């Protein structure tokens, strides 16, 4: 018997999702969808699965899931870090279809996922990456996740990188750093990357600093949130970057630099923050945090 790893209790996820879609799908469609799930879980070949995965939107609809506060909490209990708030009915159904394969052996399961991704349209890819934190054999899905980051469709990147607990939990440092850098490069809202602070590392900080130098040399700007990943590693090398950012004409950049200083334990950074009593006070009064800055940037 091979050792099987789960990220979440498959039964719990299934009954949770089924419960939610049952409020939004027509009774007949739901009934035949459930029938399909049980057929797929025992089928010899995957043909039915592939077709169902492509065509499910025709009967599931593509409405946003109607979720209560309690549902959102429940999702996080079932899978720590699972953010379901922006999911749609077809995405929930596609996750259920993927989970109906969870009794497959590791190699078969991974192969099926690769085949699926090898002939998937944009929405199918998005749904696959959204479901990643719910699937079995997570350590075997890292290449798939890295591939999702590597692709150039913003919606697909967002599905794997934002509000998704999988990357922080399973990607190695190199793949993780690429995910964050790509987010900065494409101006994605970094605040939505799960466990961004926990996975901060000095190598990434260095990459961000050198990226910023390139951008500045070209007269371009750098996402203010990027400094969040540099903050814990501020030393004499990174201090000059932060000094530059705190003097930027854009108040959001100044705020980011102040937050970086507040996060850092480097004495020179503390000194720099003391020179901006206004921002220091905002931080102390909890009117400024990385979270608040992130929201401010998204509304910008």
């Amino acid at each position, binding site marked *: 018997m091979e050792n099987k790893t789960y990220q979440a209790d498959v039964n719990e996820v299934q009954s949770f999702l089924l419960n939610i879609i049952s409020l939004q799908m027509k009774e007949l469609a739901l009934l035949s969808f459930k029938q399909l799930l049980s057929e797929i879980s025992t089928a010899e070949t995957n043909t039915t699965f*592939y077709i169902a995965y492509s065509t499910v939107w*025709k009967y599931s609809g593509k409405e946003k899931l109607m979720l209560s506060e309690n549902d959102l909490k429940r999702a996080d209990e079932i899978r720590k870090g699972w953010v379901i708030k922006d999911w749609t009915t077809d995405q929930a159904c596609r996750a259920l279809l993927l989970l109906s394969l969870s009794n497959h052996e590791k190699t078969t399961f991974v192969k099926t996922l690769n085949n699926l991704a090898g*002939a*998937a349209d944009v929405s*199918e890819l998005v749904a696959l990456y959204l479901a990643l934190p719910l699937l079995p054999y997570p350590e075997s899905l890292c290449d798939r996740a890295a591939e999702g980051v590597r692709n150039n469709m913003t919606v697909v990147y967002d599905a794997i990188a934002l509000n998704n607990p999988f990357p922080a939990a399973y990607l190695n440092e190199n793949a993780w750093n690429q995910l964050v850098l790509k987010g900065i490069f494409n101006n994605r809202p970094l605040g939505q990357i799960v466990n961004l602070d926990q996975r901060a590392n000095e190598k990434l900080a260095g990459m961000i600093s050198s990226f910023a130098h390139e951008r500045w040399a070209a007269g371009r700007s750098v996402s203010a949130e990027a400094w969040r990943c540099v903050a814990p590693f501020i030393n004499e090398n990174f201090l000059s970057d932060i000094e530059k950012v705190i003097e930027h004409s854009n108040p959001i950049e100044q705020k980011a630099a102040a937050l970086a200083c507040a996060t850092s334990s480097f004495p020179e950074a503390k000194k720099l923050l003391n020179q901006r009593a206004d921002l220091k006070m905002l931080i102390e009064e909890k009117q400024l945090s990385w979270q608040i800055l992130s929201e401010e940037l998204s509304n910008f």
Partner: protein
Amino acid sequence: MMLIDPHIHMTSRTTDDYEALQKSGVVAIIEPAFWLGQPRTEIGSFKDYFNSLIGWERFRASQFGIKHYCTIGLNSKEANNEPLADEVMEILPMFLCKEGVVGIGEIGYDDMTAAEDKYFRIQLEMARKMNLVVQIHTPHRDKKAGTIRSMEVCMEHGISPSMVIVDHNNEETVKDVLDRGFWAAFTIYPSTKMGNERMVEIVKQYGSKNIMINSAADWGKSDPLAVPKTAALMLEKGLTQEDVRLVCYQNALTSFGQSGQFNEKDWLAVEVDQREKFSGNSVLRGGQAPRIDGASNIIV
């Protein structure tokens, strides 16, 4: 005025073309699968091409506020490589059931060989079973006979003429196509297919019922703005707004809309997104005349 180009090979075009299409009022396009100028030798090349039509190209178009749809099929030229064509037949159903695949196309005859006939018929059977719209490429040589034969073969396979768009018509073929109840599409393509002054005369003579135009712009010397230019020319030459709306928008929508996957609301929603995405750019609204930069709208 909102416009549709129901036959354009964007894979071969640049982002400048997307920008120009968007500016001149094109809201949706259909990209038929065709040959790439160079015959493919491996099944993987077909698979990756079909993938790019439902993935990357769809995303690329969305960045310019244009809704991208496609038809998937084996073109007539490459039907002559029978071993490869057999492999393509195996993977086609997997792509035909994808979202945004509005039909099977472009299929039909080139040299009118036995192999072309064989795969044309196999694909018509797929269309019939899956209730798909058919987009027919009519041959460059021996066009009239090829056009008539294409329609007869469709009838033989029990496909309703209302589900078939016969493409690349000219003065010699249009009457036969309309008399038989098929949709007649015209390709405005410099030097080899239709010029748009001739197109104006055709609409004057045959009316606007069941007639549509496209650019079929590809890797050759073609004009991606053929639809907006011809729309402008039609208005200039005294055709009514309603005629132009039918020929350059509504007939494409009605015919391909039979797939259930080509709905006006898809791009009416895009217009809103577009204002967010391209803040500061003007977006054409209903009733406005298409605006084309450049000296002349005439394509000969």
